[in-house]
Every structure is written in C-alpha cells, then in structure tokens.
C-alpha cells in the first residue's frame, strides 16, 4: 500500500548523472547562441542549408501517386465511398432531410424527432434531460435551422456508429494481440495530433468530395479514443469475473460477448461519449470538403459578415453537443434494469413503446398541421440582424476598445514580437538542444531522445522557420492560458456551485465552433498575432480550468483535514498540500491545453498567420499532397514531443505520490 505524502524524495528523482546531461545540453546550446551573437557561427550551423534538405514532399508525391493510381487504391476506396457508405448516407439523408433517395419516406417531421428525444432523455436521465432533448430540437426548428441541422445529423448518425464499431473492433484486436497494440499506438498518437487539414485532402481524393469525404474525415478524427477506451476497459476486467465465465464453460466468443464486453461497459460507453463529441467538433471543419449542413451555412454566414446568424448556428451546435453529451453520460451511469420473471412485455419495453406512439402520433398530426412538419422562413424566429447589432455595439464600446487597443499595443510590441524574434534568432541546433533539455528535464531519458529525433526531422523538413513560429504561437497562448486558467480553476474549486457553473462554461466554450471566435478576435485586435493568440487562448484555457478543478477537488479529504488540524492558513493549505497532490492531474490539463493549442493554431490561419497553418491552407488547392503531409507531420511531431514529456512526468509523479 502506497503512502500518501507530498514529500517527493528528491535525491532519487534527480541523480547527478541527469544533472550532468542537462548542463551539457544547455551549455552546448548557450555556446551556439553566443557564437552567433559574436558572428563566428558558420551559416550551416545556424540554419540547415537548402541543399541538405531532402526532397521529402516530392518523394511523398510519387509514393501517393503510385498508391493512388498504379496500385489502384483509389478504386477500392471509391468503391467503398460510392457503394455502401453512400448508401447509408443517402438513406439517413432521405429520412432526416428528405433528399430524394431510397427509401423516399422522409423528411421525418421535426415534432416527431423532438418527441422521441424527450422520451429518450426521460428514459436515461429523468425530466431534466427530457426537457433538454426536446428543447434542443424545438429551438433548432423554431430558429429556422431544421433542414441544415438535419443535413449535419444525417452524416453524424452514420459516422458515429461506424466509428464506434470500427473502434470497438480495433480495440478488441489491440487487447487480444500485443503486436497489434504496439503497432496501433504510434499510429493513433499521430492521428490525434495531425492537423485536420492534412486528412481533409486525402479524404477528398480517395472518398469523393461531399458527405462521403466528410463522414470519412469525421470517423478518422473520432476513432482514436474509442479504440483506447475499449482496450483500457477490457484490460481492467477483474480476474474473478473472467474465472466465473470460464467456469460456466463459455466459448471464446461467448466470453467476449457476455463476459468481457459487459464488464468493460463503463469504459466503452465513455468511448462512445468521446466519439459523439468529436463528431460534433468536426461539423464545421468538414464543411471544407463537402459536409453539408450547419458547418457549411456557418462558413457562408461568416463569409458575408453575418455575426448574428453565425452565432445562432453556434448555439445550435452547442445545444446538440450538450444534449448528446449529457444523454450519453447519463447512459454510462445508468445500470441495466432487470425485471422479475413474468413481467408483461409491454411493461418491460415501456419506454420504446411510448416513443413509438409519440413518433407515430406526431407524424400523423404533421400531415394535418404542416407547421409541425416544417417551419418556413416566414415563421421562424431568427434574430440574426438584432444580434448583429448587439455584438457590433458591444465590441465598439469605448471601454472595450480602449482596453483592447492597449492590450494590442502592449502584447504585440512588448511581448509577442520580441519573443518571436528571439526564438527565430536561435540557431537551429541550439533550438533542438533546448527542446531536448526541456523534454529530458521534464520527462526523462526516453522523451529526451524522442524530442531529439522529432525536432531533427522537423529541421530537415525545410519548414523550420514556420515551425518555430507555430511553436511560438502555441507557447504564448498556453502561457497566457495558464495565467488565466489556473487562478480561475483555483477560485472555482472552492465551492461546488462555482465549479459546476464554470465547468458548464468550459463545455460550452469547447463545443462552440472555434471559427466563431475568429471574427470577434479580429474585430477586437485586428489581423495580427494578438488576435491569433487570443482565439487559441479561449480554447487552451478550458482543459487547464477543468483539470485544475478536478485535481483540487479530488485531493483526499484526510490530507486537507490534516492540514486544517495543524492550523495552516488557506494559502498554506493550497500551496503545500492541495497543489502538490493536484499537480499530476493539472499536468494532464496542461498537456491537453498544448494539444488544443496545436489544433487551434492551424485554424487561426484563417485570421492570418505566417506559420505552418498558412502553408497548409495553401495546399488545400489540392495539388500538393506531399507538401501537405510534410507540414502536417511537422505539427504532429512537435505536439508529440510535448505530449510524451509531460505524460511521462505525470506518470512518474503520480507513482511517487502514491496516487496511482
């Protein structure tokens, strides 16, 4: 049994050998920087010369071309896209939005869907969820977005189950076969850090522009947590359960179906929840490759500067996300109900029956009262123009303008631009050494070696300066997010009530389509680095706040009580008891903040940046698959470096504290 203590034995954690390595790394970096400052550094040590950079993009282009045309992979993927996948998408599109395809039944009236949502909500979580479910769909209909919302949903109802099934299968395979898991792990890590621009292009080429490519990109994005959670859940099944299964003579299939999967139910359902949330997160981004619906409309609205309507679409997406999130979470908590033998079947299937009855009832009623089937432009309640006016006048308030003007000047001139120039002035090898030193200091030997390998690859990709600028934006945004997020989390953690409302705000900020932040950011700060950092900051602060709250509130009560009894002040308790114990959890939040920042920094290319995102955006024109991939890998490798270092620190720390 591990003992709980905030005293981490320092001697064993930092042996003198480690110190020597660190000093060597830092000294070498300092020597290079000084050499440059005195002008004695040869140019090839400052930046990798052009001739030394391998033609990776061109080689990749040839490979892609070979795989696509000579190997004929495109025929396989096109067959899948135009055959089964398109069939599923067409069917759901017919039912939900009335696209003229088999089975020619739809569109289902909005009132019927809202009624079913209410029943499902009631079944999993009582009246509150019933109201949320019905309310979401009623809002969508009343605001005049029913059709586009259903276009979005018609893809999600196909993509999410497919992601679930594929993820479950791969997860089971990874649990069963060690070699498969070892192979899959790096692929998943890369997938989770690869900028979305990088898989949009292959999705278009291999799976046809439109809902098919949108579905494929969505599945790719949503599948990693499903796989990981499945494997995790299956590994945790307790030996007693397994023995019981074996004793009752289960076959291997029965073991999986009736023993392992039900026992891993909770983890698998958490995976389902993640799949749903990630699918919704992709709604806007996939609009670039033909996903119809809310995302496409949002981009069109932003293109014609209609803030109000964009905002309303954002609200719809948040409501859909929150509804599905809460319902799926309630389903995780809800245990299966068991009935006595002899209960009549209508009693056992009460909820589905009510849902069916309401569905049929509203469908019939909609034939009589068309307003229950569809709400037209004349009836809907969109307040786009009014919201426009409100947003614009708030942004134009003198107090706000004055503050942002000052912030823009201060951050740009005093902080961001000097910081960027400093980073860009560091010679490439020195920069790599510094990153390695950081990874080694935080995570240990293995992350240090990976950092060296990854950043060397980045240096030889030919996009060094842009990679540094990307990193600079990420560091600046995460640093500011830490300054804001951690104090906010600490204050919120003091009371149950505050934590709840701040966590809700976090959920909203996270599911609100990130594109919508870009416009106010520009209106407040103009097209420059401050706007970019600000829009990333909103996103990056969310995990920091969340994990600070979680970390502080899960500190074992006996520890805080001990602190109270020894008469420590609130400040002492926080600094020497709560923080040390919460730090590993907070580090997870910090890690996520960095990952989110790497994700958002690419989107910020739409504001106007000079980093990898800008080049990635340029490759969207569709001819440079190789370059697109190289740029994407650079982002992924940098993100992975930090991910590995911080995760490794978290694990070690947790073990040292006896929390694991």
């Amino acid at each position, binding site marked *: 049994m591990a003992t709980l203590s905030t005293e981490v034995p320092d001697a064993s954690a930092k042996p003198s050998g480690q110190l020597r390595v660190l000093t060597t790394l830092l000294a070498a970096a300092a020597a290079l920087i000084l050499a440059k400052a005195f002008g004695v550094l040869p140019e090839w040590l400052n930046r990798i010369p052009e001739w030394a950079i391998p033609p990776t993009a061109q080689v990749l282009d040839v490979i892609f071309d070979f795989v696509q045309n000579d190997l004929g992979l495109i025929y396989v993927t096109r067959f899948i896209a135009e055959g089964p996948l398109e069939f599923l998408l067409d069917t759901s599109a017919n039912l939900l939005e009335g696209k*003229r395809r088999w089975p020619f039944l739809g569109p289902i009236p909005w009132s019927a869907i809202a009624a079913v949502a209410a029943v499902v909500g009631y079944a999993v979580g009582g009246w509150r969820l019933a109201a949320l479910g019905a309310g979401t769909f009623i809002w969508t209909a009343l605001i005049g977005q029913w059709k586009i919302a259903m276009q979005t949903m018609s893809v999600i109802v196909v993509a999410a189950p497919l992601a679930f099934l594929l993820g479950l299968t791969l997860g089971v395979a990874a649990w069963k076969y060690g070699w498969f898991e070892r192979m899959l792990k790096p692929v998943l890590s890369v997938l989770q850090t690869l900028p979305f621009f990088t898989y*949009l*292009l292959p999705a*278009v*080429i291999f799976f*046809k*522009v*439109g*809902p098919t490519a949108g579905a494929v990109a969505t599945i790719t994005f949503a599948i990693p947590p499903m796989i990981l959670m499945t494997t995790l859940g299956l590994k945790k099944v307790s030996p007693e359960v397994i023995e019981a299964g074996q004793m009752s003579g289960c076959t291997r299939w029965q073991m999986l179906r009736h023993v392992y999967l039900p026992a891993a139910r909770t983890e698998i359902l958490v995976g389902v929840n993640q799949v749903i949330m990630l699918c919704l997160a992709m709604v806007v981004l996939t609009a*670039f*490759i*033909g*996903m*119809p619906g809310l995302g*496409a409309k949002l*981009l*069109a609205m*932003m*293109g*014609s*500067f209609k803030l109000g309507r964009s905002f309303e679409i954002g609200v719809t997406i948040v409501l859909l996300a929150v509804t599905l999130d809460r319902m799926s979470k309630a389903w995780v908590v809800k245990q299966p109900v068991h009935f006595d033998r002899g209960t009549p079947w209508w009693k056992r299937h009460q909820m589905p029956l009510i849902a069916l009855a309401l569905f049929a009832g509203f469908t019939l009623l909609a*034939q009589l009262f*068309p307003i229950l*089937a569809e709400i037209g*432009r004349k009836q809907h309640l969109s307040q*786009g*123009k009014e919201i426009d006016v409100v947003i*614009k*006048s708030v*942004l*134009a308030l003198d107090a706000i*303008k004055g503050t942002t*003007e000052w912030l*823009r*000047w201060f951050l*740009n*001139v005093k902080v961001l*631009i000097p910081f960027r120039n400093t980073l860009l002035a560091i010679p490439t090898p020195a920069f790599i050494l510094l990153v390695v030193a950081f990874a080694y200091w935080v995570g240990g030997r293995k992350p240090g070696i990976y950092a060296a390998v990854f950043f060397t690859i980045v240096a030889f990709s030919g996009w060094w300066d842009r990679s540094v600028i990307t990193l600079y934006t990420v560091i600046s945004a995460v640093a500011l997010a830490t300054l804001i997020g951690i104090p906010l989390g600490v204050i919120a953690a003091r009371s149950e009530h505050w934590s709840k409302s701040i966590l809700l705000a976090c959920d909203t900020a996270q599911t609100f389509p990130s594109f919508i932040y*870009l*416009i106010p950011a*520009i*209106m*407040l700060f*103009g*097209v*420059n680095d401050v706007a970019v950092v600000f829009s990333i900051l909103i996103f990056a602060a969310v995990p920091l706040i969340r994990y600070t709250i979680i970390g502080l509130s899960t500190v074992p009560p006996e520890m805080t009580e001990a602190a109270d009894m020894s008469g420590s002040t609130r400040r002492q308790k926080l600094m020497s008891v709560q923080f040390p114990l919460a730090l590993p959890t907070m580090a997870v939040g910090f890690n996520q903040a960095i990952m989110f920042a790497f994700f958002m920094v690419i989107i*910020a*290319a*739409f*504001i*106007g*940046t*000079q980093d990898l995102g*800008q080049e990635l*955006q*340029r490759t*969207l*024109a*569709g*001819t440079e698959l190789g370059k697109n991939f190289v740029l994407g890998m650079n982002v992924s490798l940098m993100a992975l470096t930090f991910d590995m270092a911080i995760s490794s620190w978290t694990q070690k720390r947790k073990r040292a504290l006896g929390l694991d």
Partner: protein
Amino acid sequence: MKLSHLLSTATLAAVAGTFAIAEDSSDPIVIPIHNWSSQIVMSSVVGLIFEEMGNNVEFVTTDSQAVYESVRLGDVALEMEVWEGAFGASYRAALEKGGLHDAGDHDAVTREDWWYPMWTKDACPGLPDWEALNDCAHLFATAETGDKGRYLDGPVDWLKHGKERAEALDLNFTVINAGSAAALWAEIGAAEADKKPVLVFNWTPNFAEAVWPGEFVEFPVWEDGCDKDPAKGPNPDALYDCGNPASGYLKKAAWDGMKDKWPTAYCVLTNISFTNPQIAEMAKLVDTDELEPEEAAEEWLDANRAVVDPWMSACST
C-alpha cells in the same frame, strides 16, 4: 406537402416535354457551392434551369480552391465562378493535369485591388489617386506598424503581390496578409464604428459594396506584362508596379465528361452568361433581403425569364 410535390413533378415533366431532346443521363448533375452568396445563388439558379429541363440536380458544399480537383475527377460537374485573380492559379493547375475545361466566360468582369470604405476618403481627400497614399500613411498606422501605414492584403494563396507593389511604388506601407475573406470583413466592420480609415483588399462583384460603399485605389493602369517585364509601369526596375487588370475574367469550368453525359445541360451551361448587375442582385437578395439562397434563386429566376429562356431554347433542337 405531398400533393404539391406531385404537382411540381408534373409541371417539370410538362416543361421537359417542350424540350425535345431528353438524352441527358438521369444521374444527378452535382453542382458545387461555396461560402459566398452570389456563387450559391447563381449555382442554385443554374440548378433550377437544369431541373426545368428534366435533369436531376444535387448540390455539394466544397472549398473554393479544392473544388478544381473535384471537377477534374468528375465528382462535381461544373464550377460557376472561376475568378481570374482568386482562383486562376488553382484552375490552371487543374487544367494542366487534365479532366476539366473552360466552358466560356461570363459577361461580368471582376476587379480585385486595394480598396477603402468611403469614410476613409474624408480623412484622406487625395484618394482614390494612389499618389495620395504616402501622405496619408500615418492615418493607416497601427500599434505594430509604427509610423508606416498598414494595408491588409488578401490571403497569401490568392497571390495578390501586395508587398511587391508597395515596394515597387515606394509606398510607406506594411503589407499584412489576412487569412480569409471573413478576416477582411471583420477588419472593415471593426473600423466602421468610429470611422477609422482602413485600406484592405477587396473585389467586385461582392456583397460588401452594398454594406460598405467604397472605392478602389487608382494605381497606374495595368499594362500587359507588368508582372513579367520591369520596363512596364512607372518604375523601370520593378515588377508589379501597376494596378490589377480592371476587368479580369469570370469563367465557368466544366468536367470533360459533362459534354457526353448531359449534352443538353452542357449546351445550356456554355450559353449561360451573367452580368455584373445580375450577380449583384443575386447577392443582394441573400445578403440584404435575408432570403435563403434557394428562395433567392427562385425569385431571381422568376424575375429574369427573358434572360434565361433564350439560353435554354438555343439548345432544344
């Protein structure tokens, strides 16, 4: 609901009957739509025309740069707005790879250049002449640019050469690239409240003309070769020392296979040609009158039968 559907199918059939040839494939003609109103409405109008002729039509939302790859592969049949300036590069790249071709120009011409909203002129009355810019540079200065003026150029992938021009004409301006059209509008929108002078990249035809009246800066007139021959334009040593062509093309592009698969529709497509006022009207129906694009298309088509019918009848032999 069901009845009206039947009726409309019946009228469609009747209309289709008047056009003798019905050899077009019954596969849907897939038309791409992008994220600006005139293109969406125009594409919807063309979709309605095709439907009247008895074709099936479907729309797909795509990125306006990535769309050329899809036209090339035949995933979408055509593209209604190929702007010389903004999409010329992607279009030509796809043209070289093969699979799509030029389906004729619109009557409309496009212009893309440095632009300012009208209130800017109050502060700098020498505009629109470009030589007034240096005297007014301080009006366009921001925190980051010091005493230099700031010009917000279009996204880098539009290849507008704003930086080169500022250098060639010795303008005291820092050129910053916006990341998207939305970023340009946000910049103008933010300046609108206290009528701050701004200089941004803009183009016509465009909804912004209706929202913020403004003018293009009149640079030295474009001469052919201004981008290749330093001798052209006022600065003998520099490229890009001219304004952009004041009348760039607006093209339609078609998939090579369209001609054979939907010959009648293809014939109509080559006849179609919209003018600047027509395009502005389509944009206005959505951007100012707040119609949904599909409704705007119907309204526009009803009001402009005289324009559209000849395009169709020319193809019904």
